[in-house]
């Protein structure tokens, strides 16, 4: 009976990062599959490669909200879902121009469930997953890693806490982004938070929340929709991911 249950479970597995383990990564959860807890349809399992392939540097961009979920109302005429999509589109173009492969979870004003976003990200076996948000509160850019406690890799990673095995890598990625934003003289707030779908991601994952710039001695006040401000944030993120490309292995 237990064999039958195990076989049934295996049909639902999503391999997290098999190629990373093939080249002996230090990242902990290289071979753990992730088991969706609430999936109604079994996610497809990509065919196993004949030979261990060189891992590709893929970045997943998740533009938060969309469709009927408008997110925060940044102004009466500006919704968070539109700002996150604009930022993601800009970031994707710039990353691709730098030769970095990008997978996006949302490319239009569509409502995508958190489960599907995490599934897309986990299938991409990404080197970095950035969850893009925007807010009217605070100043500069807020960087959040998952608030889960680091956990050792296990064979079957629980879906609700898949990120736990990646926390160390996520904090390294956060540090890289922090340095790049500081170099661009953008105020940064670092923290830990529990935000969907972060905890379900089997990749180094950071939530990036862009807030308006409050004017100060060094900074000029800028709105989140300001094109120049968005460009400076995007440029800093690209610089961070460029550096991460050589550090993540």
């Amino acid at each position, binding site marked *: 009976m237990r064999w039958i249950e195990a076989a049934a479970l295996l049909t639902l597995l999503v391999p997290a990062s098999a190629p990373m383990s093939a080249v002996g990564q230090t990242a902990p959860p290289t071979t753990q599959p992730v088991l969706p807890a609430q999936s109604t349809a079994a996610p497809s399992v990509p065919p196993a490669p004949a030979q261990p392939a060189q891992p590709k540097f893929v970045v997943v961009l998740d533009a938060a*909200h969309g469709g009927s*979920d408008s*997110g*925060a*109302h940044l102004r009466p005429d500006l919704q*968070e879902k539109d700002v996150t999509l604009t930022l993601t589109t800009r970031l994707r173009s710039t990353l691709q121009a730098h030769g970095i492969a990008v997978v996006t979870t949302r490319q239009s004003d569509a409502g995508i469930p958190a489960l599907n976003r995490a599934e897309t990200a986990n299938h991409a076996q990404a080197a970095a997953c950035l969850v893009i*948000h*925007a*807010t*009217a*509160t*605070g*100043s500069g850019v*807020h960087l*959040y890693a998952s*608030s889960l406690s680091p956990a050792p890799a296990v064979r079957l990673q629980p879906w*609700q806490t898949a990120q736990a095995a990646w926390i160390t890598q996520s904090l390294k990625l956060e540090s890289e982004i922090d340095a790049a934003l500081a170099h661009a003289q953008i105020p940064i*707030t*670092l*923290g*830990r*938070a*529990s*935000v*969907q779908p972060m*905890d379900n991601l089997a990749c180094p994952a950071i*939530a990036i*929340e862009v*807030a308006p710039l*409050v004017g100060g001695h060094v900074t000029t006040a800028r709105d989140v929709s300001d094109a120049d401000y968005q460009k400076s944030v995007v440029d800093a993120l690209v610089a961070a991911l460029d550096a991460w490309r050589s550090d993540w292995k």
Partner: protein
Amino acid sequence: MISRAHKILFMVMLLACVIMATFLIRLRNRAQDRLQAQGVEAPASIAVAPGIPPRTVTLYVPNDLDGSLTAVERSLALPADDNAQARVLLDSLIEAFHATGSTHPMSIASGVNEVYFLPVPKSQSQSGDPGQLAVVDLSGALAAAQPSGIEPETLTLLSIMATLHANLPNITEVHFLVDGQPHETLAGHADLTRTYLASEANPEPSPPESPAQ
């Protein structure tokens, strides 16, 4: 057949009931007038016994600009009951959010329906005393007034957890409801489906500001 004596007795008792009801209503109106004159909102169900001396408590007030929590000392008369104490603490915290010049502004001054306590199962704890789980039932009005965003929502939750843990150290875990029901997020971001460890708030040690009444 009802006797005349019974009829008189019934009428006398009815009259006594009416007089007593009128007296109670007048007392209630007087108490409300007195509270309104003092500019104090009448607490829904928290009764602080007279003569209880105020106690110094620590509230952790967020700052949206730098994402920090600042310890602020207040002097409050706390009821004896733990649940009521938690409510008074959180009402005072949310009043601080609402105050003029707040570093974490919110448009309402109250928003906690109730705080319930449950023992944490011993199997979940690595230490000897597993502590208590506080279930904080926030009002829908607070969730609606909460500025949307990862930072403002997370800071609201962390400040509640830090304030509860600082003043009622037996609280080791916190779970949130909205209007008595499980809610996915506070205002679109911070996850309310999970149970938080009170230690997650872990505020930066900062010198408390001067006590204020």
